[in-house]
């Protein structure tokens, strides 16, 4: 087996604790070290690394919406230089296979934080963007977790989030539309959680349509 990021062959380092571990590794130890998992203390709600209980972003959202439609966000990694580079390869240079490098940690995080009966909603991509990229990165991540998908949402807006300023993002109109009634327990899947506006737009729609719990699982918290 070779590392999905650096392509070097992965060797099992057999010790007492890995003696009976026959899982296929997709990430070599050195790459694994460079990907930095989020450490405490974090915002209780969105996992932003901060000393405060509730970060300023989340406080703002509470004020803005009255009641935040998103129950909580869970992320796996921080957005360090290595992750930025890898993310760029994954999203903009079409290296789809990299997604498997995160398989173990992504699955593990889902198991730790979310109930089994949750449905996954990969954040939809606008059609033009899908053609450009060839795949939906959120869907690729959602496929790592063995859980039913909810596909009743489409995206109508076109603008790239990354080109917008924070205020533009916060004040933009909702780019999503529901086509089906959402299930009760929803976990929104996306690659990046920056201000949380995308995820919250989606959450708001579903809460309105009757969803009871809407959380999100994102690979990176920047």
């Amino acid at each position, binding site marked *: 087996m070779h590392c999905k990021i650096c392509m070097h062959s992965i060797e*099992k*380092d*057999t*010790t007492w604790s890995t003696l009976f571990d*026959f899982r296929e590794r997709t990430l070599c130890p050195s790459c694994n070290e460079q990907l930095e998992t989020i450490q405490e203390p974090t915002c209780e709600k969105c996992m932003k690394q901060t000393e405060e209980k509730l970060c300023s972003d989340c406080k703002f959202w509470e004020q803005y919406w009255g009641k935040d439609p998103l129950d909580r966000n869970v992320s796996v990694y921080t957005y360090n230089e290595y992750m930025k580079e890898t993310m760029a390869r994954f999203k903009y240079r079409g290296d789809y296979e990299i997604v498997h490098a995160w398989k173990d940690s992504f699955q593990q995080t889902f198991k730790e934080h979310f109930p089994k009966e949750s449905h996954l909603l990969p954040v939809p991509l606008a059609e033009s963007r899908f053609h450009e990229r060839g795949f939906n990165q959120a869907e690729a991540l959602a496929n790592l977790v063995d859980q039913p998908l909810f596909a009743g949402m489409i995206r109508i807006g076109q603008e790239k989030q990354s080109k917008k300023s924070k205020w533009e993002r916060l004040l933009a109109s909702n780019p999503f539309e529901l086509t089906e009634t959402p299930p009760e327990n929803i976990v929104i899947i996306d690659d990046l959680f920056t201000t949380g506006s995308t995820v919250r737009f989606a959450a708001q729609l579903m809460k309105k349509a009757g969803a009871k719990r809407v959380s999100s699982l994102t690979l990176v918290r920047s």
Partner: protein
Amino acid sequence: MKGNIYLAAVIYTLGYLPFAVSLCLLGALLLTLLRFWYSHKWFLGVSLFLFILSIYLSPQTTAPSEENTLPEEYAGPAIIKSHPITKEFYTEFEVELSNQQMVLIRQQKVEQNAIKHGAVCLTEMSIEQVNQATNPGQFDYRSFLNHQGIQGIAYDATIEECVGSSFVSPLYEYRDRLLEQIDDVFSPNTSMWMKALLFGERSNFDDQLMETFQFWNLSHLLAISGLHVGLLLALSYAVLYFGFRISKESAMNILLVSIPVYIVLAGSQPSVIRAGLMAVLVILVTKLKMTVKLLDVLAIIYIISLVFDPYLFYQLSFQFSFLVTCSLILSKQIITTDGWLWTSIKISLISQLALLPLQFYHFYYTNVLSFLLNLLFVPYFTVFMLPVLITLLLLQLLHTPFAVLLEKLFIWINQPMMDALFGLEQFSIAQWIVGKPSILVIGIYYVIFLIMMAMWNRGKLRFAAVFAIALIGCWWMQQALPYMDNAYRITMLDVGQGDSFVIELPRRSGVLMVDAGEEVVYSHLDQSNRNTKNIIQPFLWSKGITQIDALLISHFDYDHVAGGKEIMDSFKPKGLFIAERQDLEPITRYFGDKYQPIHLMHGHRLQFGGGTIEVIAPKTNRSSGSENNHSLVFILEVDGHRTLFAGDLEEPGERRILQRNLPPIDLLKVAHHGSKTSTSEAFIREVGVDVKNALISVGEDNTFNHPSQVVIKRLEDHGIKVWRTDTHGAVEMIYKNGQSTFSPFTP
């Protein structure tokens, strides 16, 4: 697959288990790792092939089939399969007969260089079956040899017209010359250590040295271990690279060639083979610029060694060597984190824990302080003794005068070290005797061991500590088992022409011994403590018995009492009981003045836990001429089951007993080894009404013609089943819930 080759080694090992068991385990292994095998199909293929190979190659240790029985006489060609080893009284080597059976040959006289490894000779020999163990716990010489592929022994065979030799034969001869040379130039003590530590030749060690090293679990230092080979290789490499300024590449080539030569020179012991082959493989891999995990190398060497010599599997040194190496490789993250001292402590501890079940299974005890002594002596042997001995040998081969000087230094340091070790009192507290553990306890131990090591590896020290306590708890559990056992047992040990009985009362409420006899043997093997050392002590230890409550001596004849003092010394009975007597001379003769026996006579009653002893005879303290007729005769009653121990009582004595109104007896210890002077018709008619079983302790083919056919017939005519040590080996009576069952050791 890398890092998982050990799975193939596990699968290869399965081939040694009984076929049904191995298939079940293989199935389980395939099913639980279905996904793994699916993505490693060719590894699966190789593993399955190895499994079949292992089943085909692993020796059948069950009874030999009809066409494969050993001939009593053999005349014909034979291949010399091992280089002759000269011992104190004989020279021995192995030969393969034309039907591919292996025989061990012992010759009183062998001309030098007459027997060459690999030669084909014309032979004539009478082959004997190897003696089998006849007691539980006893060392089984037959299975020991069978597990090396040897089916019989021949003494002083005629060996003529030898032709040819194998290509390693000159090496063996060179080794002989080298060893002789070492004997010539060095003092006996120096040559003894040099031969053992550099060439694996241990014949010069005396018993005291071996016993001391074994007592402290240091024996592994006397054999050439992986540590020695590693050190030797490192030294050679350093000398070649730094001393002779040879390139790395050529230095490796030289080592590659010299390692196999050294394996032969070092007597090809399993540990040397393992360490040597591992080194060869590691060097090869380095040369080919491949990366391989050490554990994989070990697994490959394991399989290769067993393919070449399937019998290695049964050798203790092979098992110990691989188990320890494997454990230490798996512990590398644990071991390498701290300083030098902690590393040594951890290595010592982990090796001991990994070996503990094997140690208990084979030796019934371990030494709890050995871990400290290992800490001292392992560095002493590797850092001091080995380098000094190697240098000494090299200096001597180069004929330099420094050799004398260095030898003086060696003796000056080594002598006090060894004296200190021998002088160290062998506290019995340090010796932890657990008994022969059941397979179940061993299984539980290893599961807990794996979990503990995994916890330790992950740094979860608290959990690891809890499991470590559970680990030791396994052996406490093993020790506690007899205390929960309701059964009452009498074991008649096979001590040849003599008596020795061990009585285990229910729930270990007491352990009694009746007699500790030694056999009179006229040969060089004669030792006054043969039975106690080789039969009684291993039996008691295998049952986890370290102290007994009472030793009863029926009378003062050699075949009943000679081992008594040894038992008093090692098992510290709370009481020594003998028949009331006037003549006290034999007591001091057999026991010295250290022990004060308690005199018993008719009417005395003793209580031991769940057992009562009622003394029947003697009635006087005068022995009326015959020691036999002055035997201590008693009835042991446990849970309503009565056994009459009749000592060596003869007819006149029996007549006197009959007047004493005996209660019904269930089991009879037949007097005087079944001699016709005892067990008279009148006695059996009176005493034997309720007796269903009788025990006769008697030597095979003894010169007294015991037991008498008349007595046997007499017993059988009264419907009594006779159990005798000459045909059944040791016999154990188990009495449980009012039912007694008898299990002979050799059915």
